[in-house]
């Protein structure tokens, strides 16, 4: 009797082990596959996966739209000349805001390379992080302005030229970078100096893209006038319409011209002269590069305004300063 009982127990045990082993194997196989997780799904996860699906659907739509557009485009993207935009910038309260809205415009322009040059002895984390997240192809440089050349607190903005060292640094980098890449293709391009507080419309970049030497166009809200512009007769620039010192060689604003990369590389000595008298900064650069009749007028023979020389107010910080005097200033860790 006892042995039979024992045997039965043994078989029971063996059966039990077999069953549990099989169950384990089955569960392990289930690991690799997706289960029906409606019981486990939290509403947030459901929203996330739904939104993700939506995003994919929209991406598909965009890709389809792009592919139908492609055959109508005249040239495939790679042969579009790159626009190198050189932007000097310096740390102040509105810096991040200015760079943000500038990048939002640049994101609409294909084949644009943004060269940001900080007026600083080293690269600041604010600009570094910003550029990394911007989604634009960029080069981050820095060049401090000598102290005696720098505007002091309370100086009017026209007292000393600004951005000179930074623009020259941008040119220097560009020349060095292009020298390292021989070949005709890398010589194609346009160089444009874009200050971080101006306003640029997207069609402007289309206008400047095929610059052969130096192209020019009107600039709004500059020189104490609604706009300044080159006067075009017979497809050539004959004089300049400006309210201030029209006898300058090139009485234009920095935002009113673009130079072809070829010309910049062919004249390695051409740069901005910080010692030039007020208003002659642009001329100091362009004089060595081109004559007035070689200028290429854009924007419908210089009759349309596609760029505005806007300036941003300095935000009033009276209360902030008062708080800081009490040691209760806003959290400096919060980046503005």
């Amino acid at each position: 009797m006892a042995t039979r009982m024992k045997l039965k127990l043994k078989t029971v045990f063996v059966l039990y082990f077999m069953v549990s082993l099989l169950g384990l194997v089955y569960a392990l196989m289930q690991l690799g596959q997706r289960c029906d997780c409606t019981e486990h799904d939290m509403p947030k996860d459901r929203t996330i996966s739904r939104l993700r699906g939506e995003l994919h659907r929209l991406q598909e739509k965009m890709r389809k739209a792009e592919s139908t557009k492609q055959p109508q485009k005249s040239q495939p993207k790679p042969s579009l000349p790159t626009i190198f935009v050189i932007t000097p910038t310096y740390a102040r309260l509105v810096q991040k805001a200015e760079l943000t809205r500038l990048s939002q415009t640049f994101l609409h322009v294909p084949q644009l390379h943004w060269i940001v040059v900080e007026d600083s002895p080293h690269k600041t984390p604010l600009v570094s992080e910003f550029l990394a997240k911007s989604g634009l192809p960029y080069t981050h440089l820095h060049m401090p302005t000598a102290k005696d050349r720098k505007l002091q607190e309370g100086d009017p903005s026209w007292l000393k030229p600004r951005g000179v060292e930074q623009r020259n640094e941008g040119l220097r980098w560009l020349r060095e970078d292009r020298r390292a890449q021989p070949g005709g293709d890398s010589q194609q391009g346009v160089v444009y100096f874009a200050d971080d507080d101006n306003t640029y419309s997207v069609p402007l970049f289309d206008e400047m893209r095929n610059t052969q030497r130096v192209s020019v166009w009107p600039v709004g809200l500059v020189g104490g006038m609604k706009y300044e512009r080159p006067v075009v007769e017979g497809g050539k620039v004959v004089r300049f319409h400006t309210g201030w010192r029209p006898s300058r060689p090139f009485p234009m604003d920095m935002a009113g011209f673009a130079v072809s990369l070829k010309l910049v590389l062919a004249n390695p000595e051409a740069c901005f002269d910080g010692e030039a008298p007020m208003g002659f900064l642009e001329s100091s650069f362009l004089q060595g590069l081109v004559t007035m009749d070689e200028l290429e007028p854009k924007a419908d023979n210089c009759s349309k305004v596609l760029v505005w020389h806007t300036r941003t107010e300095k935000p009033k910080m009276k209360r902030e300063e008062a708080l800081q005097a009490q040691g209760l200033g806003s959290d400096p860790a919060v980046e503005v």
Partner: protein
Amino acid sequence: MPKRRDIVAIVLIVLPWTLLITVWHQSAITPLLATRKDDRGDGRSNSRNTFAFKESCSPQNRDIVEVVRTEYVYSRPPPWSDILPAIHVITPTYSRPVQKAELTRLANTLLHVPNLHWILVEDGQKRTPLVSRLLRDTGLNYTHLNVETPRNYKVRGDTRDPRIPRGTIQRNLALRWLRETFNINNSQAGIVYFADDDNTYSLELFEEMRSTKKVSVWPVAFVGGLRYESPKVNTFGKVYGWKTVFDPHRPFAIDMAGFAVNLRLILSKPQAYFKLRGVKGGYQESSLLKELVTLNDLEPKASNCTKVLVWHTRTEKPVLVNEGKKGFTDSNVEI
């Protein structure tokens, strides 16, 4: 001897069950992880117009993923989605030399935001061709309205009849338009945001406000004479006050750019408008918000109001000294 055998027996009995339970527990979670990884993989495999995802590890805290654009589709608003809540951006504007520039760069910003509807309200007797043309050329989904602020309101009046804050009548018109156009029962989910034409907005801001259920709030830079003003948020994620110096005891001590309202809430409270008269400086936002929501219902965004995603920039008035009395430049050229 029997003791050891018993122990072995017990262990051998218990072991498979514990393994089974842990495996079962795992399998409940891994399919969720597997879905996420697969989607990320799919996202990268698309060649040209790709968005790379940067996700946070704990999706319970953030409903929104950070999108880093690697390549971009140019100069065109993203296609309309039927699921994403629409953002109705109400912008009052008025004619002045920098108007076209301001609207141009604001449009360049808004062109990046999916499901955006721009409601531009001009302060004028009629809609100007400048604005009409600009709106048409952007390709944005827009509505162009206009209403003139009565002249005695515009002028810096005497103390008996103080000047009403600029843009109020225009914003109210936009609210009325929304209430006349959308039905509370059968319209796509929407968010209403008041965006002035000279501020600066980051693209992240629009994604933060998209999940607004009632009224959401966040910090705004360069207002109230501070680096930024922000709501005070406690550890439970609820707003309990305002970190401002200028009258922090206002019901809603927040700038126009610092909050967004769910469209449903606007439609359900048809009497809620910005108060026109008798509003003290800085109380305009409160005049609307107190009709819509209480402090407790506010939803803090931007990482519990610790990040600045909108800046109250102001553009200098250009000095047009050289124009002279008659105007030096050709008035036919639009600026």
